[in-house]
């Protein structure tokens, strides 16, 4: 149920339906439903996927993930970002790594409806792009 903008006027009869709407606004705000005020400083979207771009576990405001090249991925959002956003990342819990080589994830395209990023290992060689399970969280304020 969408967030309801309520106003109260002096002398107005206070109805149970209006108080119920106010009560439901708590849930609407918590769930960030349509028209609810945007809560700042919380993630706008997140995704977990394996090295083959199959989504694993929970995601939020994500429609799909595509493998667009070895080690390269495109995550498509079910929302539209306006302006700049950023991402933090981590390794997918339980995904497992086969060795102790350092890895990192870097964004290289930020678009309103998708983000492109790639996994890298610590070599500076061209072949350093790498597929591995990962988690990304997208932030905007």
């Amino acid at each position, binding site marked *: 149920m969408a*967030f309801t*903008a*309520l*106003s*109260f*006027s*002096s*002398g*107005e009869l*206070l109805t149970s339906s209006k108080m119920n709407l*106010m009560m439901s*606004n*708590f849930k609407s*705000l918590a769930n960030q439903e349509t028209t*609810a*005020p*945007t*809560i*700042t*400083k*919380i993630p706008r979207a997140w995704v977990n996927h394996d090295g083959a771009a199959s989504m694993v576990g929970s995601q939020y405001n994500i429609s799909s993930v595509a493998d667009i090249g070895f080690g*390269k991925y495109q995550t498509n959002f079910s929302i539209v970002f306006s*302006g*700049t*956003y*950023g*991402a*933090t*990342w981590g390794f997918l819990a339980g995904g497992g790594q086969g060795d102790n080589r*350092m890895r*990192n*994830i*870097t*964004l*290289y*395209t*930020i678009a309103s409806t998708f983000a*492109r990023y*790639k996994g*890298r290992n*610590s*070599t*500076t*060689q*061209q072949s*350093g792009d790498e597929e591995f399970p990962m988690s990304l969280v997208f*932030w*905007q*304020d």
Partner: protein
Amino acid sequence: MGFEDITFQFGDTLTASGLSAVQSNFTAFAAGETGVTPTFNRAKAIVNYSGTSINFSDNVSSVTQNFVGSYNINFTFTYSMVVVNSVSRPSVYALGNAHDTTNENATVVFSMPFFEGGTGALNFYSVFHHNFNDSADSYHQPESATAVFFERLEP
């Protein structure tokens, strides 16, 4: 307009202004305005920056450059210290990532270590940016970087 801590007393006349204030608290909470009780799992501050240019932020006043690849993220507040295992530590914890948002063929990725500036409460966090395989004194300026700060809240 900040969050209004409203109390309704038994026997009080319920006023339109009181109920309107409750309704406006939804917006104040969402925006994290003055007076909002700190919320678990919600970041204390956030910034996305390109050099010293801020793309978006909350509770961050500025990003200043010490030299290329070394920055101070300046808060609008001074964080407190907490004692963990008998050691005084900042109450703020950082999460961040640096990006090259232009080059899919880049052969490097950028690490983003946070540097604790001291043992006392401060109003900034220091950040360095390195490429993988960089030497210790080599720095890099990424296209953009995101830093999110969480504050330790006692339950």
